């Protein structure tokens, strides 16, 4: 028999959970592992018993990179596009940005707090420095 499908796919589930403005991630009911990116099975143990939980949103910058591009026509300063990898306190790592922090201020090891940005159905997780978030 064809394997039954969950009610919706994991990407849609993620979008509907984070619509409340908080970061949600999956947890495995069998091994307890925390999971990101969203999936239909646990990459730690293979279980299908996954549940969504609201995450603390807190994490630590694991690494960073800053793309430096030539200035736009009429501008003098180069354009920066800084990306980070954040280790969530719950365990998983995610790629993201710190939109309100100058690239040169982003430090490996700095504490950050998640924020949900973007439009419904296309939400993405960005981060702010932990102090500024509360």
């Amino acid at each position, binding site marked *: 028999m064809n394997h039954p499908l969950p009610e919706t796919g994991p990407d849609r589930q993620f979008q509907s959970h984070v619509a409340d403005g908080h970061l949600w991630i999956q947890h495995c009911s069998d091994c307890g592992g925390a999971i990101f990116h969203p999936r239909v099975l646990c990459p730690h143990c293979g279980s299908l018993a996954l549940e969504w939980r609201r995450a603390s949103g807190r994490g630590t910058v694991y690494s960073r990179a800053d793309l430096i591009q030539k200035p736009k026509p009429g501008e003098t300063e180069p354009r920066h596009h800084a990306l980070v990898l954040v280790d969530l306190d719950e365990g998983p790592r995610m790629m993201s940005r710190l939109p309100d922090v100058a690239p040169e201020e982003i430090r490996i*090891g700095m504490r950050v707090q998640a924020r949900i940005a973007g439009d419904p159905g296309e939400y993405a997780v960005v981060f702010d420095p932990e102090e500024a978030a509360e």
Partner: protein
Amino acid sequence: MSGLRGGAAIVGVGTAGLGEAPGFTAMDIQALAVRQALDEAGLALSDVDGLFCANMSHTFPAISTLEYLGLRPRWIDGTNTGGSSFVGYATSAAMALQAGLCDVALICYGATMRSGAGRMVPAAEQPTYEIPHKPRYPMTAYAMAAARHMAEFGTTREQLAEVAVAARGWAQKNPDAFERDPLSIEDVLASRMVMEPLTLRDCCLLTDGAGAVVMTRPDRARDLAQTPVYFLGGGVASYNRAVSEMPDLTTTAAKDSGARAFAMAGLRPSDMDVLQLYDAFTINVILFLEDLGFCAKGDGGSFVSGGRIAPGGALPVNTNGGGLSFTHPGMYGVFTLIEAARQLRGAAGARQVPGAATALCHGNGITLSHQATAIFGRAETL
């Protein structure tokens, strides 16, 4: 000991269209590299019955290749693990040859990224949860690995620059190399910062180019035109596609692929005479020297300092000039095999490592996503 050790040999290698090949397609220059590899072996296209092929320009690379070349192979392996594919094929070709699935294995690649598309063509599918943040693949992954290595172990930009300078030193001895002008540590540090902490000179070239390698079983290899270069061991390892899924950005799966290759070969890092390590970015060489066991984790920066991997240094690495200075047509892996074969035949000209009897090739795929290692040796290492 694995039956694959010594179970296959490289009998022909070829390159074509290195640098710029305007007006030619990937398939055109690939065909010329294939002809060169077969010609020097004393074999014909009609002898090839095993095909091992991947690229980024064709949806079905092996099928397009066999049609262009007029092959009707009885065994095809199109496993695409990125630029590491071709180093992985050394093991799968040895396996197919030993299993009798084919008698003459052709490993090939071609791309015209420089004159054709004019840029690095990223893969069609990219990680869903990274894309909204607009990463620049593949560089973002390597810049993040470099930044983490620097933060964790104190690796410096000068040490990264040593890798680029060593590659250029070798390239100056290779008439086929794309970049042969003198390059100093200061030049690397002063070059344009592309993605902090990597400058333009920390990044590989973007060229056209094609490469081909022909392998047979040893009995046949001994009757062919070139000194056989024996496959001694190989291994692959992979844990993740996206860099955000990589467990530790300072330790790659090369730790496992290398251990598997050394175990099959019955050899250790100290037994290796020359290394060909896929250097898409300077940090790669430091990571792979550590993960393959040539120095301790975190010591790669100091290990490469003082010209240790440059011409005249204690450990010759990327003797063709590597992806940094020789050629980099999007996927570089096949060129590690070609240079290893030339070194072990003693046919590497001004860049020849005297008496080289063993060589290690290491391929890296995608964004530190897949690692493949293969070890080769001359007849006396069997």
